[in-house]
């Protein structure tokens, strides 16, 4: 049995890179779909709102693990064989994060004070121009801390992608441990690497929150 060495560290760092890659895909994909969802949840047409609501309920009510399996086997059943695990994991993570980001952002849009919407309306601004120029810039300010906070959840949840054979940081740790059988060392290192990404994000989120409060007072 090989002793833990620099090759293993390199392997873990490679896993870390994939974790980051999948996180970025989830954040971008989830962000794009989530933004559409947030707008759909506030749409003036009830069927659009209902559809978006149903999507959110479905995604939030399904374990990410199951979404991963569905992504993996679902594509297979649809005839896309030998798709890279990254695609299945990316789709599952996008579905998952879009539902949460969509709800976070809907809340932020709705928390822009009613009189601001009304003032825009009274100047003849309605629909997209009102959102674009009056509501969204203010919602963005409110949305930044919780969004950065959710990014931490995204990073940590990518570890579930190991179930579809995606070798991200957690899976890399498992493989290294299988070969070295030094679980405490390996998993401590893995935990440390997650912490290295997540802690700055949390700290940034907290700082943004404080800044927001100061700005209001």
């Amino acid at each position: 049995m090989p002793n833990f060495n620099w090759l293993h560290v390199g392997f873990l760092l490679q896993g870390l890179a994939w974790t980051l890659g999948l996180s970025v895909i989830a954040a971008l994909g989830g962000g794009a779909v989530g933004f559409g969802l947030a707008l759909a949840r506030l749409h003036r047409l009830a069927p659009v709102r209902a559809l978006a609501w149903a999507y959110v309920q479905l995604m939030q009510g399904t374990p990410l693990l199951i979404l991963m399996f569905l992504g993996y086997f679902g594509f297979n059943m649809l005839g896309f064989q030998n798709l890279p695990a990254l695609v299945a994991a990316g789709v599952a993570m996008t579905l998952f994060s879009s539902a949460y980001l969509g709800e976070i952002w809907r809340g932020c849009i709705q928390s822009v004070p009613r009189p601001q919407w009304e003032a825009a309306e009274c100047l003849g601004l309605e629909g997209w121009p009102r959102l674009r120029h009056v509501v969204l810039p203010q919602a963005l300010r409110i949305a930044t801390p919780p969004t950065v906070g959710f990014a931490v959840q995204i990073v940590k949840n990518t570890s579930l992608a190991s179930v579809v054979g995606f070798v991200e940081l957690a899976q890399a740790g498992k493989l290294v441990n299988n070969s070295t059988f030094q679980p405490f060392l390996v998993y401590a290192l893995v935990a440390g690497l997650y912490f290295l990404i997540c802690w700055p994000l949390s700290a940034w989120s907290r700082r943004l929150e404080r800044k927001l409060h100061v700005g209001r007072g």
Partner: protein
Amino acid sequence: MSVVVELRGLHKRFGAVEVLKGVSLSVRRGEVVAIIGRSGSGKSTALRCIDALETIDSGEIEVCGHRVHDSALDRAQLRRDVGIVFQSYNLFPHLTVAENIMLAPVQVKKLPREQARQLADEVLARVGLSDKANHYPEQLSGGQAQRVAIARSLAMQPQVMLFDEVTSALDPQLTGEVLEVMRQLAQQGMTMVLVTHEMAFARQVATQVVFMHQGRVWEQGPPSLLDHPATEELRAFIANGL
């Protein structure tokens, strides 16, 4: 003179409370109508109905030729003709004073930016705040913010301006500077409808005073009405110094 705002038999309830019980009112071009009354008398609601900010249960509203009570109303068109200023200013905090004013002319009237900027400078000069164009709302005093709100409304060149207790959140000194701007507007011939607690202003500037009580127009007439109230309710209202 032509009628700019006409309310006929407005009824409006919020749940179980009937706030307007048949309000009728007529405002001709160039008139300054001051609506006074206690809190809860329905005066603000009546004003908001003019700009289609409230839906009514029955009655008719005509404003600058727009049938406001009609479900086919083109709100955007109505709001080109009607400007409204609120007690809480409602300036957009993320935009500078000039940007606040330019937003609607550029987005709604599709004015080129340079032209909109010129317009912003003009209306800012009218409210005496030319030097504040590049300030953000949080850098303004309440009185200045309210004058910017008036300027922002003026930039859309409305035919009638509505003022909903615009000085109620200001201390007396700041109230004066806002009222002065409104006085000048009135002198320039702007048609104005204002809900106000400023009796002195109503006396001096209004052409018509409307006293609302319990959801009805209780008394109306020239400002001398305030010196010779016909009803006990108006007498009590004036005597309480409100």
